[in-house]
């Protein structure tokens, strides 16, 4: 049973080896002690990073792959009062750990079962045409994860054998998990938490 310090060391060692293989393509790392290690790679090195991790560094276990949309939601938390004009909200894109320059980032996690080391990987997705290389030739299990990410965010995975919708019906338009795609339930019916006060009737004595 390894201690937290040991695991941190092993993760750091893995990151070092990854850096040695990828060189410049490893853009940033972040270590949260006791919690995990994040690594960001350059967009064109995404597939290479996967291959290095699986075949050279022994990260055989494919955990998951998804995306993050860093645009703050223009709908806030869906609690807007429909009778009032929508408030001004910041549209500044502030990415999280390991930074980033684009709105979308693809996030993946792979794991080394023998050494009990996990790595979280991020990669920027270009804003103009959201596309990244597909990991399916490296990890066969990425198939469904990439399909789901594509249908939810609109990020195309180049080289995916069969990129089509997973959850949503075929005719569905739009990419639901993008922040500018509204949560329809909150648009159709205003959030019940808004204080709903009946205006006082006209002519009540003493109130106006």
């Amino acid at each position, binding site marked *: 049973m390894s201690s937290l310090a040991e695991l941190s060391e092993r993760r750091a060692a893995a990151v070092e080896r990854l850096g040695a293989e990828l060189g410049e393509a490893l853009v940033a790392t972040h270590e949260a002690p006791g919690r995990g290690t994040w690594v960001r790679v350059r967009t064109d090195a995404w597939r290479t990073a996967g291959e290095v991790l699986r075949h050279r560094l022994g990260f055989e*276990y494919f955990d998951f792959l998804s995306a993050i949309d860093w645009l703050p939601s223009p709908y806030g938390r869906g609690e807007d009062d429909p009778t009032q004009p929508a408030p001004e909200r910041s549209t500044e894109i502030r990415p999280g750990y390991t930074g980033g320059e684009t709105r979308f980032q693809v996030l993946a996690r792979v794991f080394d079962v023998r050494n009990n080391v996990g790595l979280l990987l991020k990669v920027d997705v270009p804003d103009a045409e959201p596309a990244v290389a597909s990991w399916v030739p490296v*990890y066969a*299990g990425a198939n469904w994860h990439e399909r789901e990410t594509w249908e939810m965010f609109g990020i195309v995975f180049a080289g995916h054998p069969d990129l089509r919708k997973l959850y949503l019906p075929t005719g569905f338009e739009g990419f639901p998990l993008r922040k500018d795609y509204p949560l329809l339930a909150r648009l159709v019916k205003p959030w019940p938490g808004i204080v709903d006060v009946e205006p006082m009737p006209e002519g009540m004595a003493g109130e106006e």
Partner: protein
Amino acid sequence: MTMISDRQQLSYIASQAADARVNVELETEGMTLNIGPQHPATHGTLRIVCRLDGEQVVWAEPIPGYMHRGYEKLTEVRTFPQVTTLVNRIDWLGSFCNEVPFILAAEQLMDIEAPPRAQHIRTLLFEMGRIANVILFLGDMGVQLGAVTPVFFAFRDREFVLNQIEAATGGRFHPNFDRIGGLKDDLPKGWIDESRAVMRRVRSFCDEMEDLLLGNEIFEARTRGIGVIPREIALQYGLSGANLRASGVDWDLRRDQKLPMAWDKCDWKVWTHPDGDSFARYWVRLQEVRESSKIVDQLLDTMPSGPIMAKVPRIIKVPEGEAWVATENPLGEMGYYVVSKGDLGPFRVKIRSASFSNISVASWVLRGTYVPDVITILASLYFILGDIDR
């Protein structure tokens, strides 16, 4: 040579055309069979499209999404405590287990730890959720294979576990009991002794199942060598939980992850099986239920006293950051990637559910099997629709 009238000729042609239509529609050569979405075998609305050659499957593809509820979008409009209620309903058979990784992720971001008693009770309820969930699997696999009786025993003995969960949390199926910083309430009086009796019952149920199903020659003939998933495929597809351990990979997140829960305070064993077939998956789960009941017993004996809630502000605002926590849920590895921006609620939550990866291997493993084996393999992989579709 008889002369047939025009009318007879026309009716003859019409009947031939009708036959041809029926034949084309029935398509008995290379038949495409839809198993589901409404079907007694699939645990919910999962649709599997199979192309058959006689009784053999040429290709098969699972089509999920009939129960997609958009959880990840919903979490963006909820506060952190509200997400707990939402997340209960992903794996609805052992639903306390769904809350725990999310709460742990939030606590990691807030840099607080629940007090020892709360960690203890969390682990207790987590293991009870696992027992409730997997007991159903043990009986249900029998039904998929045609043995209709063990499932009733499974439901009966599961009731006792659910009663215990209800006594502690107030809800049989959706406890909604975990809070950031601890738990909602303490345990009721007498709960510990009752739980010990329930665990004895669970163990006798496991013995019964071992006799009834594992020892049955027909069960062995139906499951041995069926649906073998080798180690490399299992790792690539992200199979987790008992499916991975049945393929010989010795990996259990309860032992290998360092989380503020009480698993490392107990003495227990991780069960693996080298075969990787359906029998192995059933066998591993049976041993795991027994092991869980032993863990619960040990936890009941060593319960620390103390507060069950850490000092947490009334309105919870989780500081900015990202956290990933995964636990060994009954179905496999369930993890939450929580991105917070210092708000009342999360910015993005990615829910990594076990059944999603478990079922993605179906198109690989179902090729070349027979139709009855399709049912066996799916039953042994054990999925819950809420977990696949979120």
